[in-house]
């Protein structure tokens, strides 16, 4: 039991932050989503979401691609393979510890 709790120390701090965890969990539930959809769904402000996405991109958990749909500019975000692995590990650690 204590070994399982000790594993909490191994938790990835980048996705442990609630807003980032929600972004990653949302992106894990879809194929890809744009900035506006994530902003509307999470209720985060533009600045906050932008900062969290930058951190997730820096860590290599989220891929961000800027594109256009017609005349409308889209910032499309998707979870990378590394992001999927990290989220899966995070789930396992939390599940075993709680």
């Amino acid at each position: 039991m204590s070994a399982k709790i000790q594993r909490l120390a191994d938790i990835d701090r980048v996705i442990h932050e609630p807003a980032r965890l929600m972004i990653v969990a949302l992106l894990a539930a879809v194929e890809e989503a744009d900035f506006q959809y994530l902003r509307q769904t999470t209720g985060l402000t533009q600045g906050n979401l932008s900062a969290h996405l930058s951190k997730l991109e820096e860590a290599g958990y989220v891929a961000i691609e800027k594109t256009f749909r017609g005349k409308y500019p889209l910032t499309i975000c998707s979870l990378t393979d590394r992001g999927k692995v990290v989220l899966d590990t995070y789930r396992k650690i939390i599940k075993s510890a709680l």
Partner: protein
Amino acid sequence: MTFSSSRLLEENPDRIANQLIQKAHNRDGLPEIAIGLTFLLVALTMWMQIAYQPGSLTYKIAPLILGLLVPALILSSQWAIKKVRTQFLIGKTGYVKSKPVNRKAAGMVVAIAFVIAVAAVIAAYLGRNSSPPTAWFLAGTGIGGGLLLILAGRLPRFVVGGVIMSVTGVALAVGGVSLGTGFMILYGIIGLLSLISGCVVLVLFLRQPTEPAQ
């Protein structure tokens, strides 16, 4: 924010994510408008069979509408909603690409629907000589449909719609109306409510200021 740290610690983040996606799906009222139109079309076919004489053209067309137009509307509604969002509402709704359909889960749903359909046919065959339990059908459809609406929508307005559907079903059952008239009223009321609610939500959604694209 629409979620909090404490809620994330208490609940599964995946479940919260799916709830938020479901909420986002119903944000613009388009799914309700599609559901409302479908129910109204079903109610219309029932009215056509009640109001017109058997053998008349309108009476004959009704099953065709029910058999062809209603399934076509159900099957095409998701595509149409996606098209409208992409074409006209992308600045407000944002863009999302869903994961491909899980074939195992979809197969399970089809298998359950098939089992229910077979059970209904067997029940109808066994009870062919007795008078149909109209009240049971109406109350059951009202309560079952209401529960389905509450569980699928997960928003206060769906809870209200689900309660109205259940109460209407029970009221029609107690009122002793015929099966055809009962279903026409039940589907008509739900269709109208969904359509009005969807239109109101869409208008309110369109009136919200659009934030500049990132």
